[in-house]
């Protein structure tokens, strides 16, 4: 079967991705949505029709119309502009937090998984302690303790994400620690550190990418949740969580657009990352490869 084709590895990888996308069109949609949100984050502030902070008391609480697609809030600010502009902040928080936890978790997990022993035991106890807190509650505590800033939301979100990466990397490294190719690499003159960094860790990356994608969504939810209860980003900065919190006061009197649009946007963003994670999982799942 192998001699039938002489294509290179790149080609088959692309073919596999094409196959998965065809098999699961939902993933294609997720990629398109991701592109849209990235576009909003990069160009949104330059393109929105109104200044997201400009108040206009005469034009307060207007329902959605051609002039204001998502209506206006209680101070007369354009909800659409605020929702789009908020994309950059929310994505920045989640990307920064996930990147931090990815790096720290990878280092901790690699060390524990490769060398094992007391290092592993200590790390496990440490992670157990973090995981012993309901994670959102821990994030609340961290932000409350460190102070109400965007950076602290990032740190708090990173801290509660670290255990996921550390455990995943630990497991992935651990099963490959004594794999034939790791031993062969040692025989080829690689030091332990090099075997770990060059041969074992890259093989753990595919499942990590799935985790990254799922966690990006979760990190957005988390940051928005913190803002919702008054921690982190402060008004009048446009941020989805705050906007929902502010809009919540008007929902019982029927002004639904204040809360619903930012909420929907938030949901769509999280949905995108979750779908993406699912799609990536299919791509890296060896059982789906022939």
């Amino acid at each position: 079967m192998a001699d039938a084709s002489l294509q290179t590895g790149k080609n088959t990888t692309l073919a596999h991705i094409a196959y998965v996308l065809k098999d699961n069109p939902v993933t294609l949609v997720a990629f398109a949505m991701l592109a849209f949100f990235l576009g909003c984050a990069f160009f949104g502030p330059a393109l929105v029709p109104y200044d997201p902070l400009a108040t206009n008391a005469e034009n307060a609480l207007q329902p959605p119309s051609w002039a204001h697609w998502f209506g206006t809030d209680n101070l007369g600010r354009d909800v659409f502009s605020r929702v789009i502009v908020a994309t950059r902040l929310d994505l920045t928080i989640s990307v920064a937090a996930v990147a931090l936890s990815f790096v720290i978790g990878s280092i901790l997990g690699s060390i524990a998984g490769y060398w094992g022993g007391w290092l592993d035991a200590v790390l496990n106890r440490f992670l157990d302690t973090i995981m012993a807190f309901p994670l959102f509650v821990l994030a609340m505590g961290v932000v409350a303790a460190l102070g109400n800033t965007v950076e602290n939301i990032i740190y708090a979100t990173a801290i509660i994400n670290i255990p996921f990466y550390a455990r995943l990397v630990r497991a992935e490294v651990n099963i490959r620690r004594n794999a034939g190719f790791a031993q062969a690499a040692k025989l080829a003159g690689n030091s332990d550190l090099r075997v770990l960094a060059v041969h074992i860790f890259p093989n753990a990356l595919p499942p990590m990418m799935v985790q990254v994608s799922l966690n990006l969504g979760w990190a957005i939810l988390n940051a928005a949740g913190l803002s919702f209860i008054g921690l982190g980003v402060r008004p009048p900065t446009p941020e989805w969580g705050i906007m929902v919190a502010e809009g919540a006061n008007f929902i019982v009197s029927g002004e639904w657009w204040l809360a619903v649009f930012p909420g929907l946007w938030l949901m769509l963003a999280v949905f995108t990352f979750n779908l993406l994670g699912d799609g990536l999982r299919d791509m890296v799942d060896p059982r789906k490869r022939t």
Partner: protein
Amino acid sequence: MTTRTKMILGRMAQALPVVAGVIVISFVLTRALPGDPAAYFAGPAADEASIAEIREALGLDKPLIQQFFFYVGDLLRGDLGTALSTGQPVMADLAARLPASLELTLVALLLSCAVAIPLGVLAATRPGTWVDHLCRVLVTAGVSMPTFFTGIVLIYIFYYLAGIAPSPLGRLDFIYLPPPHVTGFYLIDAALAGDWSTWVGALKQLILPACTLALFTLAPIARMTRAAMLSALSSDFIRTARAAGLGQRKVLYGYAFRNALLPVITTLGMVFSFTLGANVLVEKVFAWPGIGSYAVEALVVSDYAAMQGFVFAMALLFVCLNLIIDIAYALIDPRIGLS
């Protein structure tokens, strides 16, 4: 059996350093809270001297390490300090509010399991079909909904538009009296008292917040059930069972499902953590008098004793829960503790 018992005892011993870690972290976190509790407690009109006096009375002038030992000592006596905002002992506040949170969480989890596990099994028995894709999109949408947003949308639809839900303010409409306190769970207490109109009233209040939480936890349970079921169904022992002529039901439920339940039980721990966290947001939206909304109020006024008590109680609750899950797992899976 002795090895099993040993394993369970060992697992309990493992929880001890975690509890110690929880105590340290909850102490450190709350001591770092911004704002001066002494100044807050003394009131806006207080001068430097009276603030210092109060600081001394609260033990805040001592070195941090000494404060920590006082804290541990107090903990051992069951004293979590006094909440500045309510003037009550934190322990009493938490004890009064915990049943509300627990009732909400448990009802939500039961609801979620009742939907998610059959959904996962259904998807796993028909992989790649539209049923499978639909399940996936549904549960992914569910986990993507911020709970605070879902809550608000549900209130808008069922309270404002349809008018079938009661006003989202607490556990019981003001026309009912709370049932006599036995467990603190209104549904149970009302049933015990035979007061069915109150029971229905409590249920009506509970449905929306419970659905909000359940929607959020649907995804991890359904996903894990599907994955575990798929891997169980493709394993060799299922082929043996089929080759031995065992019936479809026996193969699916007796063999595959029981094996698939093990990873699902492990996931429940994680799901519980999500639920307890999301609880804080849902309680705020529905003005639910649980410990989550208590914490949010405490946070706003930098009430460190209340905050500390809340974080500590949550963590302790969760540690116990994980312990129960692990022990349940060990009792179900004969391989634990022996291999």
